[in-house]
């Protein structure tokens, strides 16, 4: 039995499947809401790293980041609802794996920033330009979150046909 087939028969998956009629639309609506929160807040921070809004200290813009984490949390939970209730439809879709890969890139990028540059960012004063390394972090984050959005929105159109063996 494949992992997808096993997951599809777990009590959790069966419970989600039985509520799919209202649960799926609700989670989709929340998934788009979380997306706006995540991209809006993280995008503003990325723009600061890239050198926009120099008058504002990086650390001050970073105070909003818990809201981006909330957006990500909403999307992780609602995303898991989709995957656990219909695992095969995602696992067999290469575009879904592209999405997952870019989420991993975004995650690693954020962790690298936090551990390698966090202390340096706190020392940046208003008006200071960001070093090149910060600009790279900001650009990678911005590009990879939009890649996540692109792959997520395109996965019913691009990979689904491949996954279904067409």
């Amino acid at each position, binding site marked *: 039995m494949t992992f997808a087939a096993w997951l599809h028969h777990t009590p959790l998956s069966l419970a989600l499947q039985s509520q799919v009629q209202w649960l799926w*639309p609700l989670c989709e*609506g929340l998934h788009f809401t979380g997306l*706006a929160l995540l991209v809006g807040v993280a995008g503003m921070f990325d723009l600061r790293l890239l050198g926009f809004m120099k*008058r504002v200290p990086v650390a001050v*813009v970073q105070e909003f980041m818990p*809201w981006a984490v909330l957006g990500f949390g909403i999307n992780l939970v609602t995303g898991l609802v989709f995957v656990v209730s219909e695992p095969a439809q995602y696992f067999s879709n290469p575009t879904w794996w592209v999405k997952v890969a870019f989420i991993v890139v975004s995650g690693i990028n954020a962790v690298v920033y936090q551990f390698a540059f966090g202390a340096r960012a706190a020392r940046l004063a208003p008006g200071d330009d960001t070093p090149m390394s910060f600009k790279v972090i900001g650009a990678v984050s911005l590009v990879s979150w939009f890649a996540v959005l*692109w792959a997520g*929105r395109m996965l019913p159109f691009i990979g689904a046909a491949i996954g279904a063996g067409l």
Partner: protein
Amino acid sequence: MGARPRPPGRVVKPLLDILQRLQDSSFSVAFVSSPSIWAYPTVLMLHTVGLAMVVGPNAVLDLRLLGAGSRLPLAALRQVFGVMWIGFAINASTGLLLFVSEAADKGTQWIFFVKLLLIALALTVAVLTKRLVFGGETDPSHPVPPRAKVLAVASLVLWFGAIIAGRLMAYLH
């Protein structure tokens, strides 16, 4: 498509005919049935990019007005409106394409009109917020006026409501 329970009246019928003609136009048919990912899927994807550009920056401003990240000078968030209007232009144009191509189906969905109403109200709230906070009568460095907090809550509720109504268009016919 789209079963109608009652025969349309004298006013409604011509409107429905227009919607149907839009949906049946060679442009709409080509746009919807094109196998290219650069047609319908890309327009739909751009509609989501625009959504993020409108609602994301708005949410940042609203959260700031409600007390989040209060060390951030409000004046720095004036630029939020620039990003928002670019996002809105993307979504008005992609939204128009998506509507025209399925005019008879979407134009008869009540949830679509709920979405449009929520967007109209949210835009009104955004303009009022801009006037109140950045309009000159209030110094952005002063404490946030209570009225701006009311507008911020309304903005969050209306934009998130618009997103959910838009998503429900795939389900409520």
